[in-house]
């Protein structure tokens, strides 16, 4: 008798009735919104400017530094340096300057006639990349100008040599050329991969905790006297997958609802702080018709089913492994060590995804999207860029094989693990359980 639907049903209904589920479903979109908003707001609030005191004995760099939003450039006050050079004797004076928050001293020393320059920056705390890069660029630009003058070149002539090419990427299809919409593909691929990553971790570990709960609560003995361990495990995995999908749908609906509501009330336009902080409209990503057009031109009919397939297969693959870990330990605290080897490939996949986005058809991308533990995330990253059919087919067959394999392995471990209490579980012991009769 097949009891998987019964087990899955219990998992689904008891979980969606729980207080945490309801709270998380409501708070999810809000938290997600905050997640995106907070860094933007933080960047706006972080407008405390840094004062840079310039020590430029040659006087050649006066015009090189223009004040910006976050940086103010001033000449070193008279009398700070007794001999016109930075040395230990004037330490007290310099320290006094640096004591004010967010200040630094920049020393520029021209070494030779071709304007090679020693640049040094001193501050109380080590300087951030933003400051050092800005200074380097300004100094480089100034030296560039100085050298042009030295060689008798007209800066305008040189300027006219520069061009700003805008490469448009197309793919050649049977119907001719088509826009390859690289940016769109990148966004889409990464978004999907992130979603996948979240789903596997959130709900995969929920499977693990569910198994631990049944085992620690000693209800397991009764369960496996009525139902085969395999059916119990599959029921749990499927039930929790439905919980996850249900929650995602709720989040999407709520998120859309909230943003529509906010849009309808015109709240986003009336919010005063954003206009006063100096961020211009052009810096904010705006939805323009181009985007809508690009969205419309994506090959959705192949992306969506494939995405769903990788999504579910990837989840099942990992959820089965999480279930095996849950069955092997007595409490959640003991699970850490065994969760590590499972989470490594997922983390590796999400880290690799940025390289894959840069080079979606390279060999790293190829192999990582074949390897079944990383393919659910990395193939999804590649999909919007267009992947040859044979690669998808090969990757899917590996994934399906791995999925079957992981369910088999997890089932074997589960069946022994759920009866074992008080054992110090290691990978070696798990291997032994695998081959028990």
């Amino acid at each position: 008798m097949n009891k998987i639907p019964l087990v899955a049903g219990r998992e689904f209904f008891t979980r969606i009735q729980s207080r945490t589920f309801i709270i998380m479903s409501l708070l999810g979109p809000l938290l997600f919104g905050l997640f995106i908003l907070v860094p933007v707001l933080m960047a706006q609030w972080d407008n405390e400017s840094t004062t840079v005191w310039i020590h430029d004995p040659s006087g050649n760099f006066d015009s090189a530094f223009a004040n910006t939003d976050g940086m103010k450039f001033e000449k070193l006050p008279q009398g700070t340096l007794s001999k016109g050079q930075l040395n230990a004797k004037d330490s007290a004076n310099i320290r006094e300057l640096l004591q004010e928050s967010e200040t630094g001293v920049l020393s520029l020393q021209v070494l030779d006639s071709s304007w090679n320059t020693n640049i040094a920056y001193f501050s109380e705390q080590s300087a951030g990349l933003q400051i050092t890069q800005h200074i380097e660029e300004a100094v480089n630009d100034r030296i560039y100008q100085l050298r042009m003058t030295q060689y008798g070149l007209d800066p305008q002539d040189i300027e006219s040599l520069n061009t700003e090419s805008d490469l448009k990427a197309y793919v050649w299809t049977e119907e001719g050329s088509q826009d390859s919409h690289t940016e769109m593909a990148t966004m889409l691929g990464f978004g999907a991969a992130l979603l996948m990553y979240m789903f596997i971790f959130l709900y995969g570990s929920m499977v693990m905790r569910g198994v631990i709960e049944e085992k620690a609560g000693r209800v397991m003995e009764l369960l496996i006297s009525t139902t085969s361990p395999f059916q119990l495990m599959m029921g749990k995995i499927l039930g929790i997958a439905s919980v996850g999908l249900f929650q995602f749908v709720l989040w999407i609906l709520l998120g859309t609802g909230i943003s529509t509501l906010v849009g309808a009330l015109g709240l986003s336009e009336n919010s005063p702080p954003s206009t006063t902080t100096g961020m211009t409209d052009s810096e904010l990503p705006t939805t323009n018709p181009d985007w809508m057009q690009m969205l419309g031109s994506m090959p959705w009919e192949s992306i969506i089913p494939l995405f769903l397939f990788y999504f579910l297969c990837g989840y099942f693959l990992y959820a089965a492994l999480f279930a095996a870990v849950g069955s092997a330990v007595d409490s959640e605290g003991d699970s850490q060590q065994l969760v590590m080897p499972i989470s490594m490939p997922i983390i590796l996949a999400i880290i690799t995804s940025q390289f894959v986005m840069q080079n979606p058809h390279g060999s790293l991308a190829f192999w990582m999207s074949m390897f079944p533990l990383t393919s659910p995330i990395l193939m999804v990253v590649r999909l919007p860029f267009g992947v040859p059919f044979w690669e998808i087919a090969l990757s899917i067959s590996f994934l399906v094989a791995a999925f079957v394999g992981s369910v088999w392995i997890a089932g074997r471990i589960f069946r022994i693990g759920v009866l074992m209490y008080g054992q110090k579980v290691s990978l070696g012991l798990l291997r032994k359980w695998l081959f028990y009769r």
Partner: protein
Amino acid sequence: MSFLDIRSVSKSYRHHQVLNEVSLKIQRGHIMGLLGPNGAGKTTLIRMINRILAPDSGSIWLDGVELSPEHSLRIGYLPEERGLYKKMKIGEQLLYLSRLRGMTSSDALTAAKKWMTRLEMQSWWNKKAEELSKGMQQKVQLVVALMHDPDLLILDEPFSGFDPMNAQMLKEIILERRAAGTTLLISTHRMETVEDLCTDVVLIHRAGVVLAGPTQAVRRQYNGNQIEIHCASDPASPPPSPPAHFPVRLLSSDSLSSSSSLPFSTMGEPITRLVIEAAPSEWTALIEHYNRHSRIVYFAERLPSFQDIFIKAVGKNDQPIYN
């Protein structure tokens, strides 16, 4: 034909043999007490009957058919490790667990209500398990074992954790189930359970069956041919010892002043109690001998308690059965 038939079942974990060629038969409607020291393999045997574990060799037959998943609905199980879902309502747990057994939802609902009324726990339906005491949770688990009206009921230490009231109630249910034709297997360390309830008994020790059989037969087997004779006699002239030519031995003789410990009323008469070791063939001669000299008011075979039998059987089997 026996209802439950365990045929030379063996099970070992790595280098440790838990059960070695264990065979056991229980007749329909009997109550079998499963005894054995801790770690003797009782739980493993019970798990195999519940199909939680598979035997390495041997087979288990229920009502003439080898065990299969279809038997789930015919077996009721109260595990020693009691457990429920902490956060789930009692009513929902009962329905879920009995549906996993294979009951339909409507049957499960009827049965759950019936048993909750019977055990006076009607008001618990919407309570969560974590709100109940340990003893109360145990009642819920008992209901789980009984709900589907199983033909074979396996109770692992059913009395531990119950107060005297609930223990009495459980005893009644066990006897009532037996009368209704249910076969029971009760694993226990409480010897009075065996003496009170069990029709048969099996003792497992060191992976094997040490003794098995109907309760009375087992006691007789261990009785050492002792009889107890009570004679009404004046303490001043006690009944004589058995004649020297009898192949019997007087073990003790004492006068009983109070009759409170006796199974019958002595109406204030002075009584002498004699304990004699004698083969059953000598009993008639002994009765005649004592009736000549005084008046026998009580004669009984002295059966050992299961406490004694257990210690004797486990103690004498100190040689490992397996190697």
